[in-house]
């Protein structure tokens, strides 16, 4: 209990002092995880939409593969990225290993299955009549697809939140491909591991609390963006033939 109280005091001090080291770690964590989520969206969302709305042979296998991605162990992803980026790997000449870029790549690969899987479910949950209705009003196929995705945005927002959640707290992959180099690749999770190994439990717990607070703040912002309007309710009265008031 004393340790925990001490940790809380330490956390308060760290936050109050805003030490350059802490700020550096927090900013890097946000930059790496934010970029990874964006890259994960760029990879995962088109896949989710294509598999969710497309009809092609092997579609069920594709869905199962995406869902298997939810269970990807971060260290396995880290291992693969390490092998690709290591000096003897196929992309070794790029010299990206132990850089924030390598961490972004690894985390993007972890976020993409979440984004794809939840986007897939979200676009499937929208009635197919939406695209037909849009086309019946003269929309191009692209505009009709955009309209469909707008209707699915509650679920697509959840996909982004889940993708962010998958990477902000991740440590295995970033440790392997980033190396936890102070001032270069040290992020909050790797710093927590380091401080714990050093026996600085108070600092580790303090960093953990800061990490949770940041995760909460980012999720709150994303949730506000997502829940601004609830498309699931839109047109519900018409669909259910609710009588006029």
């Amino acid at each position, binding site marked *: 209990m004393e340790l925990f109280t001490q940790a809380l005091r330490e956390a308060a001090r760290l936050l109050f002092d805003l030490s350059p080291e802490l700020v550096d770690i927090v900013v890097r964590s946000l930059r790496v995880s934010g970029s990874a989520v964006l890259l994960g969206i760029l990879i995962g969302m088109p896949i989710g939409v294509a598999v969710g709305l497309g009809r092609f042979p092997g579609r069920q296998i594709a869905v199962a593969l995406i869902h298997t991605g939810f269970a990807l162990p971060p260290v396995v992803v880290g291992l693969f990225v390490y092998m690709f980026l290591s000096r003897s790997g196929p992309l070794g000449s790029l010299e990206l290993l132990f850089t924030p870029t390598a961490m972004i790549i690894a985390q993007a690969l972890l976020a993409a299955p979440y984004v794809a899987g939840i986007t897939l479910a979200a676009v499937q949950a929208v*009635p197919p*009549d*939406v695209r*037909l*209705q*849009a*086309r*019946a*009003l*003269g*929309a*191009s196929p692209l*505009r009709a697809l955009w*309209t469909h995705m*707008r*209707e699915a*945005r509650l679920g697509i927002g959840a996909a982004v939140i889940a993708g962010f959640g998958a990477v902000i707290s991740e440590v295995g992959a970033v440790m392997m491909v980033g190396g936890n180099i102070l001032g270069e690749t040290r992020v909050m999770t790797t710093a927590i591991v380091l401080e714990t190994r050093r026996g600085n439990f108070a600092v580790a717990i303090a960093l953990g609390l800061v990490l949770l607070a940041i995760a909460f703040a980012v999720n709150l912002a994303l949730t506000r963006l997502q829940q601004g*309007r*609830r*498309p699931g*309710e*839109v*047109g*519900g*009265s*018409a*669909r*259910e*033939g*609710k*009588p*006029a*008031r």
Partner: protein
Amino acid sequence: MSLLRAQGLRRRYGRRLVVDVDALEVGRGEVLAVLGPNGAGKSTLFRLLLLVEAADEGRIFLDGREVRPGDREARRRLAGVFQRPYLFTGTVTDNVEYGLRARGLKRREREARVAELLALLGIESLARAPVNELSGGEAQRVALARALAPMPELLLFDEPTANLDVTVRRRFREDLARTIRTQANAAILITHDPADAFALADRIAVMEEGRIVQTGTPEEIVLRPATPFVAAVTGAELLGGGRVVACEGERVMVAMEIARGAGPRLAGIAPDGAALPPGTPVTVAYRPEEIALALPDEVEAGACNRVPLRVAALVPAGGMVRIRLEGDVSLTALVARHAVEVLGLEPGREVVARLEASALRVFPAR
């Protein structure tokens, strides 16, 4: 020249032939109703004609030019209102201007058109309302305004009143009647409800199991149904089977067949061009509202067919009463409540059902 014409249109789902329409057309200034029961293939036909689904066979012509689902220019000359119109996320205005945005209209033009339509449909106060706060009737009006906004040449409706309750349905039908003729060149109305078809259409095409079985004006469809199915879909009831005993022009004398042998002889009308020589097995249909009831001692001379029957049951139907009559044949009569009181009708009461020959339709049995 017709505005839209379909020729040899076929659509299969698996092995099932859902749409099998040899010919269908709608002219400029015309409202065509496609009337049929659920499962007749009407909604599939709606999507084919709206060019949002491809047919397996057949051709569709718009102003004489063949068009296909990928033809965006053609699709923009049409607009459709689905049975359960999905209103997109946002406000009423966002929805009504959707088709205008898709056509790249400038903001000022969009605003003017939206304001005009909302006023026309009496929903101008809802312009900024989120669509999830609308009632069923309001949502249906928004869907109508949204379809009308781009000034389509041909409007298509799939069961426009099916999701509305009775009072809202009547008002919405009036809105439809007022707007489709002023805002579009022509309209196709897909419906299972004869009331929609009779209230709104210039011509009715009756659909049965994917096929158009008869096309004509509402009067022709009611007075000269080509088949018992057409008669039934427009509100007629089947009286039963019989055999022709005499035929003179369109007038046919039929001996009804009943369980105990020969039933009453009734005079009716044959469909146009049907040859019904004596002995032909036939099916007879009638409209319940065309039956007049009288007490046995009060029957006046002149009525063509008189059938003595007994009242079996009375079922209130709004301002009218449906009366089930049993005897040598079974009939359902639809009479005013007032008549029930005047005649003192109750179960077991003997009555005489009177039908003019023109009220009985005789069809060759299938």
